């Protein structure tokens, strides 16, 4: 027998109040943990995906959409631009590297991206099995694609037109052959099927087979890409190049850094509101701990008095109630952290195909310590007043009342 078993016994003797206080606290802690994990992981992931890309060039439209589709592969593309734009941009002395991407098809919800090898080096990704694509219609799958679809090196698949999971227009006559699988890089590459630019052209030109050489040349001249990712050779380029492209060409340039910040500023308002709500939940939980203990105090006035009669010091009685508050807080906080991670796993799993796996529950964030501290602190604070009142109780007075 010790103070902890005594406290736990009293909590077990009031299951309803105990569960209510624990559940309320767990709810608040879970909401806060979930927010923390989602916001942190999405921000981190988006930062990683945009690393090294200074500018995205594509068809005119919304700059946010261009960045979302060109870098994060989340939105639909704004359109296509002619292949010669890549050559023009590469020639510019302010551009160190121009990486063209061709989008439009998907494989079981994962986007098929026509690209050059530079796209893989951009993220420092490595081949886990097989090799990088070479000839047209060779494909390399990202780690998530391989894991979710089960497709393996050596197998073939056909892409469907469009980038939603519901697209039904299959390119049956042009199957891809998987020649490699990328190691997990924690970037957007994990969720992509990579192939050469030529593959994408072949699949789409197949719809209207060229009749002769002249038409073939004409088709080649009309070839397009969806976006071009640019890396500057000098920081000064940021001052002139975007403006020059946006004003003086049919293309649009968008800065991932700027657009992402803009996007998060918009989302930030919602996140703050949710964070405030979670904070309120935790305070409400603190109040319920306070009510539970105060109520317990009323019910147990004579029991606490008899503890004093048996020789317990006021400090012991104080400690008993503080311990009850701490146990409630610890149970609620622990359950809340676990539930937060569970919800994070669930939300990562429930996200639409393109973003699936963006949030994982496996990572622990250092700020969770602060959340746990907050939960425990609220519980402790809520227990202070009832505990103090219990320790100061007028024992002879209570005994005379109750006899």
């Amino acid at each position, binding site marked *: 027998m*010790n103070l902890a078993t005594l406290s736990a016994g009293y909590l077990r003797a009031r299951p309803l109040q105990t569960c209510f206080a624990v559940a309320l606290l767990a709810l608040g802690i879970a909401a806060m943990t979930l927010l923390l994990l989602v916001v942190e992981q999405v921000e981190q992931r988006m930062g990683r995906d945009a690393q090294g890309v200074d500018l995205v060039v594509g068809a005119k439209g919304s700059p946010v959409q261009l960045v979302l589709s060109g870098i994060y592969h989340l939105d639909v593309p704004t359109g296509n631009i002619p292949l010669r734009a890549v050559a023009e941009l590469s020639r510019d002395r302010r551009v160190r590297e121009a990486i063209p991407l061709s989008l439009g098809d998907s494989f079981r919800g994962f986007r098929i991206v026509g690209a050059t090898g530079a796209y893989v080096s951009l993220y420092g990704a490595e081949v886990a099995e097989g090799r990088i694509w070479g000839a047209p219609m060779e494909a390399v799958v990202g780690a998530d694609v391989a894991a979710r679809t089960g497709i393996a090196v050596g197998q073939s698949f056909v892409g469907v037109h469009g980038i939603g999971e519901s697209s039904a227009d299959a390119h049956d006559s042009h199957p891809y052959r998987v020649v490699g699988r990328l190691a997990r890089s924690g970037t957007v590459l994990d969720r992509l099927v990579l192939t050469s630019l030529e593959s994408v052209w072949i699949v789409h030109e197949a719809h209207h087979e060229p009749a002769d050489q002249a038409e073939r040349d004409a088709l080649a001249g009309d070839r397009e890409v969806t976006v071009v990712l640019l890396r500057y050779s000098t920081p000064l380029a940021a001052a002139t190049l975007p403006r020059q492209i946006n004003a003086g060409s049919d293309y649009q340039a968008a800065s991932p850094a700027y657009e992402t910040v803009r996007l998060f500023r918009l989302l930030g308002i919602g996140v703050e509101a949710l964070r405030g709500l979670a904070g309120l939940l935790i305070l409400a939980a603190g109040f319920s701990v306070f009510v539970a203990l105060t109520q317990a105090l009323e019910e147990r006035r004579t029991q606490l008095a008899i503890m004093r*009669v*048996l*020789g*317990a*010091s006021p400090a012991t009685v104080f400690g008993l109630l503080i311990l009850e508050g701490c146990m409630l807080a610890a149970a609620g906080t622990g359950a809340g952290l676990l539930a937060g991670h569970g919800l994070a796993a669930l939300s990562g799993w429930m996200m639409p195909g393109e973003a699936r796996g963006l949030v994982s529950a496996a990572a622990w964030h250092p700020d969770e310590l602060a959340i746990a501290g907050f939960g425990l602190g609220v519980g402790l604070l809520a227990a202070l007043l009832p505990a103090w009142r219990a320790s100061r109780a007028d024992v002879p007075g209570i*005994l*005379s009342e*109750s006899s």
Partner: protein
Amino acid sequence: MPGELTRAGAAVAVRGLAHRYGGVAAVTLPTWDAEPGSAWLVLGPSGSGKSTLLHLLAALAVPTEGSVEVGGVELSRLPPAARDRFRAGNVGIVLQALHLVAHLSARDNVRLARYLAGFPRDDASVDAALAALGLAGKSGRRPGDLSHGERQRIAIARAVVNRPRLVLADEPTASLDDDAAMRTVDLLESAAREHGSTLVIATHDQRVKARFGRQLRLGAA
């Protein structure tokens, strides 16, 4: 019993006692001595201060005037923390409302007295106290599963398990029938005698008057 030899003189010595509670006189008692191992009845009508006297003897309150000595220690001289320790080691109390902890077994209720007094765990003396009161077979049961008489015996076991100098009982026979009242008094007396404790029973129950030669009568204050 190692404490036995050190007990000398009066177990309880009261001098010029007057206690007021919220400005109202609660009890007055000019002189009273009780020798070790004696058994006393404190008699008097309601409001004569029987409970207050017990609280003062238990160092739950400090008298407004006069002194109370238990085992040669003047209680009002002790700082509050020492009063709690003194009570834990020297005084056992049985109240009319028994105040057992509902979710603890009979055995744990008695162990609680040892734990709260800061004494080392000693299940042998806990079991012995329960057995002496005929509760050996029921030590695992909770108070709610036991009869009133059995619950009262748990409270008595709890009061004597620390081998106190002084066992106090406040109206232990109220609301009991004649047989049960006599049994309770017998149990208190034998439990106190077994542990060499001085027994003080506060009561207005006329039925038990004849059982005790030593009586202290409090007048209406």
